[in-house]
């Protein structure tokens, strides 16, 4: 399942956008969103999901349980 950003907690700092290896993150109305089609949970790229590791607000980039697991892990 891909990651999603909880908009109400997002500071709009763009750190995740700069780190995402899949260019899956973009700005939308002052906060950032993850394109679930592009997110690979960073599997195959890095040991830890980059958006989670760099986000200044804990528990803001979280797995979206409503969507299927990413291709890479399946």
């Amino acid at each position: 399942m891909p990651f999603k950003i909880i908009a109400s907690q997002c500071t709009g700092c763009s750190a995740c956008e700069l780190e995402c290896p899949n260019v899956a993150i973009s700005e939308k109305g002052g906060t950032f969103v993850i394109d679930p089609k592009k997110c690979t949970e960073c599997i195959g790229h890095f040991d830890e999901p980059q958006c989670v590791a760099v986000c200044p607000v804990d528990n803001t980039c979280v797995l979206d349980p409503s969507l299927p697991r990413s291709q890479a892990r399946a």
Partner: protein
Amino acid sequence: MDVSECNEASSFGGAADLGEVKQAHTGHKGCGTLGGRDKASCGSQARQGDLPPAIWEKVKSHPCYSEEAHHHYARMHVAVAPACNIQCNYCNRKYDCANESRPGVVSEKLTPEQAAKKVLAVASTIPQMTVLGIAGPGDPLANPKKTFKTFELVAKAAPDIKLCLSTNGLALPDHVDAIARLNIDHVTITITMIDPEIGAKIYPWIFYGHRRYTGVKAAKILTDRQLQGLEMLAERGILCKINSVMIPGINDQHLVDVNKAVKSRGAFLHNVMPLISAPQHGTVFGLNGQRGPTAQELKTLQDACEGEMNMMRHCRQCRADAVGLLGEDRGAEFTTEKIMAMDVNYDLETRKAYQAKVEEERAATVAAKQQKLADLAGETSDINLLVAVASKGSGLINEHFGHAKEFQVYELSTSGAKFVGHRRADPYCQGGYGEEGSLATIIRMINDCHAVFVAKIGGCPKSELIKAGIEPLDQYAHEFIEKSALAWFKSYLAKVQSGEIQHVERGDAAIRQGALISAA
């Protein structure tokens, strides 16, 4: 984090207090405005003649690197760098309020193109604006593309503006060559510790090499990278200022060691700043009750470090989008909307002519003081005291007591008048009404001062100040600060000598926390 636990766990000289730190350093007396007596350069008050010509050329119109310049020249920050690569317990990126003035906070983010237009707009409106800094609101080097693009655009359009940046240092070694190539000749690194055990209490994590590190390991990487970056900059002749946040019980005594470490690696200037930790900021330190230092605690530490290297004492801890002289913020005049509507006419010749006038004004300030210093030459006294000054800039006593957003503090002794800091205050008088609560606050902010120099003051605050033991002085209105302070000091010494008054020590003062509420 539990602060009491931090205090106990502090591996750093538990028994020693700041008094002892100061004792250990009494060999290094701070220098007064005589300048250059003991060292090649004296504090950030260094003047022409104290410094090698190449360095003087770099700092003479930079308000952050030269205390004297900050009375005359303005700076601006552009907020093009929102992302950060570390987390600090004194920072909360969510908090943004136009009434609040502290690093890490901005009202709007800009693209490099918007930023360049803003710089030109400000440079045309405020000809004494000589420095563009990028300081965040995140870390400039965590946003290298936007940061360097902004500098490139500005260098092309306004080549007379000095460029500087302020970083936490984690990514610094990777970008030193780009910094040198773009002629960024001032870099500030925030270094609050060189001991990872202490660092772990200040930085919960860092993001480095695509990983999040926590605890002592994170702090070790951070300090190694900071010191490496500092050495690399110093090798290339780029002037480095070190900012240190003083956090009582965590790194206060340790900052003397930080001072030695950065000095030995070629730092030019050290700026020890008080922790800002009001609970409403929502920072870890704000929420866990970690206090900031008192005015005297801060001054004692700055004095202790001064023998080792130049100390900056005029820092206003400004926002990442501040515009204007230090201590003022004209950012609201230059919102993106207003800038984009502006017809900007950048005229280098007008700027040069204006700055030539500023230099004349500046020379007059120095000459006036030198003259008064000569008057004091025959005096011998151990008396050393602080005075507060209400000033709008230009080195003059030109602000009404009730309108002052801050007071500049000078230390007076027979060796001269030395700028040692400033105290922020909410203007006492708003629209002509004095408010009692805020008067008491201002008295607390300048409680360690013997006198306050103002352009004008009302009857009620005057009598309250006298009651508190602070002498209000309006007879030096619109005169040069240092000249007036020394003239008053001379008469004070004479009165003490004749027995007309008795010299008594003053107590401590508080450092203003929280939002600056600007008077309409």
